[in-house]
């Protein structure tokens, strides 16, 4: 533990050799960790014995990553009688703040100290296990909390925020400034030192700390009691999602911890394959698709972005085969999810230009070509060699917004995506083939004007 709170004997000059009373550790701590930025709001409460009159409280946090500009203190009782007068960052010492507190009462009073720290982070992580027929996937969600803040947080209430917060300064930078609010007189050497620190992490620093470890209760407590999996409570606040882990967790500096974020759910999924040469080249990409809604046993809350690893059950004994890894983006309620598993060869899409003709030439007075049409016939051969039915999406881009299209064969649904893109959606049964043709006429030069008039 590196954060130390000291009450100074009264009316003594600052930092003179005085009798200090080191206070006991924090009574409780709550961490609210953001995933979009390196930012954690820590809120701790401590019982302080204060005297009537002026109290000086020294707070130091050497070798941690606390942002001093975020430091705040407030009494949790007798608020009208206790006045937190000011906060001073004394000269020539670093990572230390001094509160002057004027109290009209004396005795033990609970206080809350809050601050931002960097170095504590979390990420969501998922495991998907497909059934043998690939119609269902057991989705397990986890959160992985890492603590590289320099401070051990014991028995902390851990909450996680999903959402993009706006930050002007990086907390890690604020935590490393020589002066809490910087210095109006720029000293060259100093600035250089500050920047030189960069955002190098405070992992494994070489300082030794002469503090005693209090007897630490293990998160699990005593043996003998069957422990349940912890619940993660999810709620929406403003534009953000707040996940709170039941009970408390101890996450020491340097450690990370993976906790289940929701109970495994069996989600009905579709095997979706995509062909989009503008996006993926001439390959077929595999996706697992489902929706964050009730129908898919989900839909209660948004799903935070994270990495998923997808496995497939290969037999009744629960043996697994690794299907692939993918990155999830943030999925709001009722949104479609498509997990990219990479390119495959067992679903084949073969596009072929079968015919190319030009027509309807228009000439100007001099005999130069001023307009013409291009007529292209494309053939798509689709093959599903897998033993499960699939859905296939084919996107075609035309590089022109002046076109007409006519279709033939098994082309399924066909949809205009934007001015120069169409999408064909085709269902293919297990081990089946389909073929469709489309004729694309694109208009050039003065034929564009004729096309618009029509």
């Amino acid at each position, binding site marked *: 533990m590196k954060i130390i709170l000291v009450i100074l004997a009264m009316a003594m000059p600052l930092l003179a050799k005085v009798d200090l009373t080191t206070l006991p550790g924090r009574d409780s701590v709550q961490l609210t960790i953001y995933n979009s930025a390196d930012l954690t709001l820590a809120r701790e409460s401590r019982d302080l014995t204060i005297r009537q009159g002026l109290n000086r409280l020294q707070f130091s946090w050497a070798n941690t990553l606390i942002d001093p500009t975020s430091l705040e203190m407030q009494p949790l009782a007798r608020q009208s009688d206790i006045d937190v007068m000011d906060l001073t960052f004394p000269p020539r010492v670093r990572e230390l703040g001094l509160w002057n507190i004027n109290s009209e009462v004396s005795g033990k009073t609970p206080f809350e100290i809050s601050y931002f720290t960097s170095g504590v982070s979390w990420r969501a992580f998922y495991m998907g296990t497909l059934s043998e027929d690939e119609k269902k996937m057991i989705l397990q969600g986890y959160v992985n909390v890492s603590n590289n803040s320099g401070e051990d947080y014991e028995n902390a209430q851990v909450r996680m925020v999903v959402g993009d917060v706006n930050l002007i300064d990086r907390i890690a930078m604020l935590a490393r400034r020589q002066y809490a609010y910087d210095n109006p007189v720029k000293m060259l050497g100093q600035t250089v030192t500050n920047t030189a620190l960069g955002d190098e992490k405070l992992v494994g620093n070489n300082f030794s700390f002469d503090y005693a470890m209090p007897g630490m209760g293990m998160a699990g407590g005593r043996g003998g009691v069957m422990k349940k999996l912890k619940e993660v409570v999810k709620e929406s606040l403003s534009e953000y999602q707040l996940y709170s882990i039941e009970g408390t967790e101890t996450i020491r500096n340097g450690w990370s911890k*993976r906790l289940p974020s929701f109970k495994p759910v069996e989600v009905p999924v579709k095997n979706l394959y995509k062909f989009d040469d503008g996006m993926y080249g001439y390959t077929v990409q595999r996706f697992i698709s489902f929706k964050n809604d009730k129908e898919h046993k989900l839909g209660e809350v948004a799903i935070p972005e994270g990495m998923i690893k997808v496995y497939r059950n*290969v037999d009744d004994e629960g*043996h697994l085969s*690794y*299907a692939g890894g993918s990155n999830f983006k943030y999925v709001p309620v009722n949104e479609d999810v498509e997990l990219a598993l990479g390119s495959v*060869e067992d679903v084949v899409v073969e596009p072929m230009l079968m015919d190319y003709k030009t027509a309807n030439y228009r*000439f100007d007075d*001099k005999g130069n*070509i001023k307009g013409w049409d291009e007529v292209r016939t494309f053939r798509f051969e689709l093959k599903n060699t*897998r033993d499960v039915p699939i859905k296939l999406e084919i996107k075609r881009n035309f590089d022109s917004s002046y076109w007409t299209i006519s279709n033939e064969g098994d082309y399924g649904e066909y949809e205009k995506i934007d001015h120069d893109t169409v999408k064909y959606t085709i269902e293919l049964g297990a081990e089946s083939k389909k073929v469709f043709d489309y004729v694309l006429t694109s208009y050039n030069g003065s034929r564009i004007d004729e096309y618009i008039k029509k």
Partner: protein
Amino acid sequence: MKIIRTILVLVMVMATMAQGRIKLVALPERADSIVRLDNPQFTLIEEERVLTLQQGVNKVDFSWKGVNIDVDSIRLSVIDHPDEVKLLNVSYPPNEAALVWEISSNQAREETVRISYLLGGIDRLVTYKAVADKDETQVDLKSYIVLRNFSGEDFDNTQIVLDYGQTFMRDIRHEETKQLQFFKKTEVPITKIWTFDARSMVWDPETVPDQNIGIPVSYRIVNDKKSKLGDNALWDGKTRIYQNDGHDSTIFLGEDNAPMTPVGEKVELKLGNSRDIVVTQRKMDTKDINKIFTKESDYRNRRLVMFDREELITAKIENFKDKTATLTMIQQIPGEWEMLDCNMKYTRKDNNTIEFEVKLPARSADGPAKKELEMKYVIRHIRANQQPRVINR
């Protein structure tokens, strides 16, 4: 060399230091294990271990050294009592290749758990050996897994699994390579094909007098039931093809990389070149017709706007073999074109490509069997100097 270790921390409450971790009792060695090689990029290891659990919360330490494990891929599943034994959370100690599972059990018991993870440095190749009969109508096809273990880990009596075919129980040492036959199919029918591709091959052998312009020869195999295959996709792999020589021995015909071949698809494996079939292709005539010029009063100022170019191509095909052969001839005609005259039947593969199947009789006493393709087509050229582009997709 056992590098992956599982340790059960027996004492529930211990005097923990912030940095130092105290590891206590090492767990029994892995029991059953599986090396699953069905994903060509990633090898999944599944291993079973029996944990001696106490009632309450147990800490199990899993650590490794000198091996490359994808940490996020590590899974622990409880086999015997999944409802009574629960994995609570996983902790990752600082600067160590290790993790600590917190597992709760409602009573003291021996519990089998399955640990799975993706391990780097271990993979497999698939290779094939095909032996054709003397008539080249069928092959005996064998497939091998070549397991390459450079992961840093030894596996004792582990099960080696691809997605189909035979599975094996073997010991695998670090830095060991093992070749195992995992299927064999006899009398798989093949089609022998000769291909002349005018897009990439020399047209007129007389222009390279000291060289034979070999015609590539391949065997075509269809991955279907009729060919005694078709149960699974055939993995990609190097294929070496031999032929029975009729003297209780074989000769080596050549090798090729077989691509991944899904069920129902065909694969063509190149053996080598035939020099007993000779194709001599020449452009015999070209004429520009249907010229359209800009309208200029002065002839010298006018520009060619569009024209059609007529081309006459001949291709003489000679078979010097004493056997019949069917030559696949691929011709390319780019851009906007129309066939005017052609003395052989062709199929249009795409806009720029047409394909001929030329059946060639065996040579006779008079000399080689000959056939001659004659085709005349016209290509539209827009703007005088712009060549038609090859666009096929």
